[in-house]
């Protein structure tokens, strides 16, 4: 029953026009960034490299596909949660608003199974968004700008990664980025259980992300103990894959925090959904 219900969810997501909005927005945004960098990328790069010019000499294709992909990821990964929540935040509440949840729950499927199938569909949709972002950033970036060593400016300084040492880092980075986006996706589905309109969970998800991000960036002592446990703190952990050597301890810590959030959101949603009276 779970697989059949999950298939149903895929059919519904695939048929909804809003599901393609995320892909379209990513295409447009990445397209704009790639166009801008193609036209005036060197001045953008020289702004970064100028501070090192007295001690370092840069040779070769600095403005390459690897750097472009990194820039794109850095610029967009913060905005992608909205695109994900736009679809996943609607998975339960949208059906409550239109009354179809009532129709589904008069069928012999358990509420837990129905909810898990929605979580699964939300996870696959999130995966699609990440893969599309990867294709647009890495594949199209390399096609347009070629390959080359990757220069990454971290808080510790400049890191230069050989071009044949970059692809696996992107894979790892995208995997952690997926986990972070999955957390957003599960949060919005969890909030969706408590709402009977589509907008509420989407707006609340974004509000939580903004609030947690502010708490995470505010250099105030009172938040020091909370900060490491906020999922938003770990949404930029994908960057850790572009450090040398890899801060494995930090990466694992991020993965665990995000996984704990995911389990918590799923558990809360299952508990609440099973208790909920369907009055819509």
């Amino acid at each position, binding site marked *: *029953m779970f697989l*059949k*219900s999950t*298939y*149903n969810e895929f*059919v*519904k997501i695939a*048929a*909804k*026009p809003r599901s393609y909005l995320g892909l379209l927005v990513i295409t447009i945004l990445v397209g704009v960034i790639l166009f801008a960098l193609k036209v005036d990328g060197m001045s953008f790069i020289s702004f970064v490299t100028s501070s090192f010019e007295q001690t370092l000499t840069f040779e070769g294709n600095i403005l390459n596909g690897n750097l472009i992909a990194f820039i794109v990821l850095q610029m967009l990964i913060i905005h992608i949660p909205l695109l994900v929540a736009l679809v996943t935040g609607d998975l339960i509440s949208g059906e409550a608003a*239109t*009354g*179809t949840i*009532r*129709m*589904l*729950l*008069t*069928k*012999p*499927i*358990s509420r837990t199974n129905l909810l898990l199938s929605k979580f699964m569909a939300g996870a696959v949709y999130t995966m699609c968004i990440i893969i599309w972002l990867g294709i647009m950033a890495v594949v199209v970036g390399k096609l347009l700008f070629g390959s080359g060593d990757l220069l990454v400016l971290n808080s510790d300084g400049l890191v230069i990664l050989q071009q044949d040492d970059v692809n696996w880092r992107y894979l790892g980075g995208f995997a952690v980025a997926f986990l972070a986006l999955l957390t957003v996706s599960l949060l919005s589905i969890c909030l969706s259980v408590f709402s009977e309109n589509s907008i509420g969970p989407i707006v609340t998800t974004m509000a939580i992300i903004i609030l947690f991000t502010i708490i995470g960036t505010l250099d105030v002592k009172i938040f020091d103990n909370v900060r490491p446990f906020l999922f938003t703190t770990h949404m930029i952990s994908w960057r850790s894959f572009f450090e040398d050597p890899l801060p494995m301890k930090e990466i694992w810590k991020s993965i665990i925090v995000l996984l704990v959030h995911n389990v918590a959101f799923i558990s809360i949603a299952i508990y609440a959904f099973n*208790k909920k*009276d*369907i*009055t819509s």
Partner: protein
Amino acid sequence: MSDKIIEVKNLSKSFGDFEAVKDVSFTVYKGDVFGFLGPNGAGKSTTIRCMLSLIKADRGTINIFGQSLHEHRHDILARTGSIIEKPDFYKYLSALTNLEIFSRISGKPSTKKEIYAMLDFVGLSGREKDKVGGFSHGMKQRLGIAQTLLHNPDLIILDEPTTGLDPQGIIDIRNLILQLRSEKNKTVLLSSHNLSEIEIISNRMVIINKGRSIVEGSVSELLNSEELIVTLEVDNAISAQNITTKHFPKAQIASTEGQVLHLTISKTDVANLNKTLIENGVSVSSIESKRKLEDYFIKIINN
């Protein structure tokens, strides 16, 4: 009449301080078209939602097919088809895809051929691939019926199935329900606030009001009561009252308003009463009779 399909006992459900259903009890037998009658807000939909486990009851028991709903929800829902209030579908999907979605999780998935046949049965042949968003209310109702029947359930629960339909649509749905009972031996629970609808198609019924079940029994027994409430408009109410009391001792004068008399009298005595009054010099300008239950039901609604 021995096989109990639904047995609801002392069902209660509150939303905050509001008691939507209070100690509702009734029994539906195999082959019944059971009328679940009550005015809007009486607690019909809440009771039905409890029967489909959409709402959790605070107290009471629900047994369907002899099994506890609480313990055998999956088995019971696999044998039940329902429309609650109005059929809601995915507007951006076709009628066919909608039915496929509900069929997949119905416990008995249907083939495409079966779905086409069902759409033909409810008169939606040729509209299979049209998006439901473009359907009229009547068409959605038909699609709802198709969704209800597709997995060949033994029990069909229809909550106000004719609401919003045009007269032809209402007749079609009524005929369909009667056909389900007579040809396919299905048990149907039909919720309605319309007494005449229940009278036409149900064999048994319960009346529910303000969350309580008021009366339950055979429709023919409850509606074709020998007792009628008769309203007489005469030229001399005092004479009419005296003549009635003298010649029809079992008749009960309920009230008089000017020259209008309200009384309860046996159905077989109504014509005699008219004749006797005229023979005794009382002129009868109008005579109206109502069945007691109908009057009772109207009072419930008005109150």
